[in-house]
């Protein structure tokens, strides 16, 4: 740089967040005396309009060419101040922030020492900012299409919103039908809307929408590229049924030699299906699928003289020659809506889920009360001796939630309310039933939830505060052993049916999507958002968004809200048609790179590849950074033995003086 550095230093009070602990006046006075500093000021809120104006006016008046803002973490306001610099014609990257809030005032109490540290941090920022280089952000075209992974209510809603806005959507669902968990539910709390009635129209919409390409019974195999330009490969699994011919009549399933022999996944194993099946009557697409692990013809090569489904199918849709097919396409954004698993009640052996047929999970209860369920909505349970209509029914809350013994510390957020709803439905169908709910505490936080909870208590549902320790059998009754913690009384209550209000857990097959998209998990193992408050639908990777329970347990309205949020966020690059690429990314010094590939292995974003170049007549391999993928994290730089890869603005020659200044060396 030929221009002499002229620095402005701006110390923020952040209300009293900083000024209560740090003598901001003293810091700005100190900064005034640092080399190349033309002007140093302090102000109550640097990020406010007047604060920014202060900087902009000084840049114009004093011809400042480097700015230090001593305030908060750069995460929130670095973009704010960069923009301010840019507005008055200064390169936005001629800015360095000294974090005197999170790294100083918030973590110290001694005013004198905190002030001394703040001065050090400012001196370090001053030392570095002089050496920053001008950078120019670039833009690349974005593909006006989106990939939505998972077609539960979250994926369906996100797809519909994006498609309605006029963009192409590829909706990938691994099971044969869209609908997800919501399709399994009977009524929804607290309004008692019929789940299927409100969901099925949306399921039909995604199948018919001109902008949505529905890829059911398919799995994402490969994703490469970056925001605006993801290359996606999807495997369409063979259904062994020609979907263009299948009318969904069901003759095949009835004819199947193994008709109604396998537990139906949709009915949580309580109903049966054939080897060729439609997961449930309202399935979309309404096309049959042959289960390749069950079908006699596919597993053994023969099925009597000829497969019965082939004989039964009038349109001739059965096609055993069908193969998996790979579909490739390009999208600008990706929404992950892979949903959840229900907690495996076998992990709480004291409740005897696998021992007693009349200990069931909440989701099984959903199917049991559903008119489309295995009993046609009649509540019938097997007490080990006979099928009965249960008269005494218990619900146990927080099974697999808020429970460190199974590794799930979180609240699953829906169990309190689905229990209340199911208790109500039972009371509705069996008016003389006694229903008890064992709870730790009831969390009825949503709109209309508390009112609903009050309503079911008025209906005579008994709430007993206590976490049962054991369930055992006595005669043909189940005994729940529990301490009523409100009265400190040990109890042994007898029941015909116990419903375990199992919580939500991350999907067991999440690992695949995590590896494919390089996502992170939060400590609860759900997928992690970019910021818990301000970026709840974003991931750390640009252009990849989260919707629904893959990010954490939530109910239907929250899921839909998040899906709509994710859709809106995903549409930003699609609508702009361009994506900005940050200039603060790693850069390879090709002259010294020896092409060992350590950085390629280390890079968490797959942003580096080896390319062959001609170096003084020799063809050698060197690393090259894909600037659109690089996040500037610097891992590569730490691993590079020849120091040939460094993030811009964090080069050795920029940060070493910064470190030296921290240590008091100028």
């Amino acid at each position, binding site marked *: 740089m030929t221009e002499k550095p002229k620095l402005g230093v701006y110390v923020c009070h952040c209300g009293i967040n900083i000024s209560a602990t740090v003598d901001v006046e003293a810091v700005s006075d100190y900064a005034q005396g640092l080399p190349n500093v033309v002007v140093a000021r302090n102000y109550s809120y640097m990020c406010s309009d007047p604060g920014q104006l202060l900087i902009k006016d000084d840049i114009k008046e004093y011809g400042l060419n480097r700015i230090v803002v001593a305030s908060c973490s750069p995460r929130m306001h670095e973009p704010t101040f960069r923009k301010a610099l840019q507005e008055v014609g200064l390169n936005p990257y001629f800015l360095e922030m000294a974090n005197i809030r999170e790294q100083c005032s918030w973590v110290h109490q001694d005013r004198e020492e905190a002030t001394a540290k703040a001065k050090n941090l400012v001196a370090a920022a001053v030392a570095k900012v002089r050496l920053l280089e001008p950078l120019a952000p670039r833009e690349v075209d974005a593909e006006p299409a989106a990939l939505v992974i998972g077609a539960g209510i979250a994926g369906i809603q996100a797809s519909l919103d994006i498609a309605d806005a006029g963009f192409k959507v590829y909706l990938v669902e691994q099971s044969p039908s869209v609908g997800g968990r919501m399709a399994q539910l009977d009524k929804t709390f607290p309004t008692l809307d019929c789940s299927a009635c409100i969901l099925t129209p949306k399921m039909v919409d995604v199948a018919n929408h001109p902008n949505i390409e529905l890829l059911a019974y398919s799995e994402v195999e490969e994703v490469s590229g970056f925001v605006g330009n993801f290359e996606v490969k999807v495997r369409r699994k063979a259904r062994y049924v020609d979907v263009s011919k299948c009318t969904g009549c069901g003759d095949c399933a009835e004819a199947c030699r193994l008709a109604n022999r396998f537990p139906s996944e949709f009915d949580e194993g309580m109903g049966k299906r054939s080897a060729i099946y439609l997961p449930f009557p309202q399935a979309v697409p309404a096309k049959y699928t042959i289960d390749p692990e069950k079908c006699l013809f596919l597993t053994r090569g023969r099925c009597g003289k000829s497969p019965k489904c082939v004989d039964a199918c009038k349109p001739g849709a059965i096609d055993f020659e069908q193969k998996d097919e790979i579909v490739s396409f390009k999208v600008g954004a990706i929404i992950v809506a892979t949903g959840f698993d229900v907690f495996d009640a076998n992990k709480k052996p004291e409740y005897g889920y696998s021992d007693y047929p009349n200990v069931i999970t909440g989701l099984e209860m959903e199917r049991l009360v559903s008119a489309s369920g295995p009993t046609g909505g009649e509540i019938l349970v097997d007490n080990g001796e006979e099928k009965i209509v249960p008269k005494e029914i218990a619900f146990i809350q927080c099974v697999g939630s808020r429970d460190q013994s199974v590794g799930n510390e979180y609240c699953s957020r829906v169990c309190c309310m689905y229990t209340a709803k199911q208790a109500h439905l039972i009371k509705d169908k069996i008016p003389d039933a006694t229903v008890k709910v064992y709870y730790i505490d009831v969390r009825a936080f949503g709109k209309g939830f508390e009112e609903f909870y009050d309503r079911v208590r008025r209906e005579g549902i008994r709430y007993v505060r206590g976490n049962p320790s054991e369930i055992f059998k006595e005669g043909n009754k189940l005994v729940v052993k529990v301490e009523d913690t409100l009265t400190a009384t040990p109890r042994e209550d007898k029941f015909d049916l116990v419903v375990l209000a199992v919580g939500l857990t991350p999907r067991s097959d999440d690992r695949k999507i995590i590896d494919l998209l390089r996502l992170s998990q939060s400590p609860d193992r759900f997928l992690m958002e970019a910021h818990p408050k301000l970026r709840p639908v974003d991931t750390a990777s640009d252009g990849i968004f989260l919707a629904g329970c893959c990010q954490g347990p939530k109910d239907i309205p929250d899921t839909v809200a998040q899906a709509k949020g994710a859709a809106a966020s995903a549409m930003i690059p699609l609508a702009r048609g361009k994506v900005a690429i940050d200039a603060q990314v790693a850069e390879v010094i090709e*002259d*010294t790179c*020896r092409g060992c590939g*350590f*950085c390629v292995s280390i890079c968490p974003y797959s942003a580096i590849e080896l390319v062959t170049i001609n*170096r003084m007549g*020799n063809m050698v391999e060197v690393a090259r950074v894909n600037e659109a993928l690089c996040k500037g994290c610097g891992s590569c730089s730490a691993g590079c*033995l*020849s120091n040939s890869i460094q993030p811009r603005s964090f080069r050795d020659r920029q940060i070493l003086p910064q470190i030296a200044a921290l240590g008091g060396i100028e």
Partner: protein
Amino acid sequence: MDLDKLRKTAAEVVSRDDVKYLIGWRRGTFGYRVAPHFIEDAAGVDELIFSPLCIANLANYLTLTEKLPVPRGQEADTRKVALLVKGCDSRAVAQLIVEKGIKREDVVVIGMPCPGMIDWKLLAERYPETDVAAEIGWKGEDFLLIRGEEEITIPRAEVLAEKCRLCRHPNPVLSDITIGEAVEPWAVAEDSGVAEIEAKEAAERWDYWEEQFSKCIRCYSCRNACPLCYCEDCILDRLDPIWVNRAVNFSENTAFHLARAFHLAGRCVECGECERVCPVGIPLGKLNRKLARTVREEYGFEPGLDPEAEPFQASFKPDDPEEFIL
């Protein structure tokens, strides 16, 4: 050692169209000296030797060629380089392949099982060099020195190089052609050198290394002889920024040696070249072996055994131990 077979094989290899030259050893100019020998045609093989004095690791030369600029109008010579390797040298080749320093297909490895090498300094102490050309070979477990009429059997323990006492891989880990029978790995002595330093108090260790590093004259021989120090532009030579000052003093010398040792963690194949070439006798092997042992024991990784391995410094496992982090 079947020298005739070695020379015959070497002659065949250098006569191949796809081989540029063969790197081996020849007798040096005086006494016990041995020099690297670059053979471009079959005539050169007559001078080729393999004796207990061929301790130098020639893998170092593999990475030199591509650094030479190709004169304008000429094409780069992309033919293979043939290389004679002992067990330890072959590990350097394997590690170079792991970190893409060379390509497997660009090198013809002629492996020679190694019964152990002589520490030239120990030998010269006991049997001073003379003008008479000396010939040294193996005799059973021991070494045989033939000098004019003299024929002396030297007990193995008397002159065996330290790195060979600790050698666990005397047979080449990779080779295209192997000459000689595989040798039985011998019982490896406990690395008393490292244990001795580990047993010291921190202050004593500091004093020990202060004394050692203070001797350093920063000739960079250790770096230059190391087959795995081959960056185009070593960061210890850089001027922007200056990581290690050029001043020769304890502080800068320490920075240099520690940077070098850490760059070799999980990469050093313990060939001992750094220590061998050090003109002031700094026990660099102890430093390298300490790091190698940590990598081996904490991470279960030993470099230079598998050319397909993932490079240690670039691999990560969630259960990697972190005990050594203070």
